[in-house]
């Protein structure tokens, strides 16, 4: 069965190296050079720690997508009251005419539908 994945995926990061600037960019966090240095070391330590898993024999463990045991927690297709718009917009930094007002969007939208 063909289970081709949506594009835009990357393999799991190797713990050898971590590009802190890249990760920061994805998370929209501005880091100073000092921070890049500091967090790079910390993240590398973390990944080394996680790498300990590679030492274990996991032949008898099946792949797990979820740590919780529940399955099929679903709801019927029935409406429920939502939030009042005034309440919603009162929490936004800016609004206009019933819309959220956000800073201008610079980048072209990626894979959003």
């Amino acid at each position: 069965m063909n289970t081709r994945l949506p594009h835009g995926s990357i393999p799991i990061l190797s713990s050898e190296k971590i590009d802190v600037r890249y990760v920061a960019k994805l998370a929209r966090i501005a880091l100073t050079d000092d921070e890049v240095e500091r967090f790079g070391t910390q993240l590398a330590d973390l990944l080394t720690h996680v790498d300990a898993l590679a030492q274990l024999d996991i032949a008898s463990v099946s792949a797990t997508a979820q740590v919780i045991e529940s399955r099929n927690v679903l709801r019927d297709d029935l409406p429920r009251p939502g939030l009042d718009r005034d309440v919603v917009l009162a929490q936004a930094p800016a609004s206009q005419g019933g819309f959220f007002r956000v800073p201008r969007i610079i980048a072209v939208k990626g894979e959003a539908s």
Partner: protein
Amino acid sequence: MSGTTGAAAAGYEAVIGIECHVELKTQTKMFCGCLNEFGGEPNTKVCPVCLGLPGALPVPNLRAIEHMIRSGLAFEAAIPAFSKFDRKNYFYPDMPKDYQISQYDMPLTQGGVVRYWLEDGTIKECRLVRIHLEEDTGKSTHAGSGDGRIAGSAYSLVDFNRAGVPLMECVSEPDIRSAEEAVAFLEALKRTFVQLGVSDVKMEEGSLRCDANVSIRPIGAHELGTKTEIKNMNSFRSVQRAIDSEIARQVALVTSGGRVIQETRGWDEVHATTHSMRSKEEAHDYRYFPDPDLPPLEVSENTVGWLRVELPESVIRRFTRYTGEYGLNVQQATQLIDNPSLAEYFDACVALSENPAQSVNFVLGDLSRLANETGVAIYASPVVPKHVAELIALLDGKTINSKIAKDLLERMWSGGGSPKAIVEREGLAQTSDPGAVAKFVDQVLAANGDAVAQYRAGKTNVLGFLVGQVMKASGGKADPALVQTMMTQRLA
């Protein structure tokens, strides 16, 4: 010249794959109880879940899951016993959580095939990679630049009414070879989704959005060329034009020594061309991972079995039944299929009359005309299939002619009831008695000496006029075939 014809002339063929997003028709959104409705005042169908407020927990809509499975089954997809939701991470203001709930490596449906037909009736196949379930984003309007476009806008306005609406993404294999096929493929998807009631599939309301991956390769080659992804196609017509234009652009590029670069290109309806949408070349890195808020789904064989049994006859099966078994032409078959209630009505008429040719004439002809004129749908009119079958039997048995049949239909439409009863009550049965018909013929010949002379002088087209006079004299009841024969004999 279409892009495909041009490509073939230059020794190339196009290879096209489609990715389309279809909004599911449910009462409520995918993970919350807010209404799933098009339009309305901005931000009036929102709650903590679809606004992505901290601590809010999504709970999947059972109906949407059923829609997905039924859609997959309609295209013979596999329904895995286990599937799950994943987070697709990226930032965009109309996506409040900064991730979209989607399905990455374990979608609800896998594989499948869409069978569709072209205008000439040729049946084609396009395999599906998968159909997966995700949530729609909100809508943003770019204000301040005057034309609603991103470039130059001062700020953006966001409405989250659409955020969290269930969306299925269908991804096809690159089995499509022309813009015409791409449109026919989309029409087939649309027909099936409408028939299943899983979506309204209105491109103008954005409930169907599609992108096309287009590449070209020398005819006969197996390797795929570099593809571009075409976006911003807002109608079937723009899909056709955009793909044609992109094929032509790639062929012109390659035949003049250039090469296609992999990129996203937007279709510009006004200038009838695609343009590169690359801003900064930024690789997408969505860091998919299983959504910890959503337990996985297990779909039992039993559930799949039930949903499969309840599926209606597939659209392509209906098409082959109509064009094959019933001998309808492609246009008639398509017209019926595109109007499911009309098709049901037609099927009922055929079941009772066993005469598909006459049934389709009445359903798509006089009955459709009456429906248009009166604004009443055929199935809601007093004319029931049983009466249509009776009418066909009266015609087949030559009890009435087609002129009387037409009149009868009008009377049935206004509540006349059984055509057989009307015919008996009002003595409308066709006169096939040679003696009676001969009387009318002789009468007309005697009264139209000029026409008779003209006919004998070689102007044989007055025959129609003379036959018409006989029909008139008989009150429309004479058997027209008999009149014609008798008249020709007398004039010889």
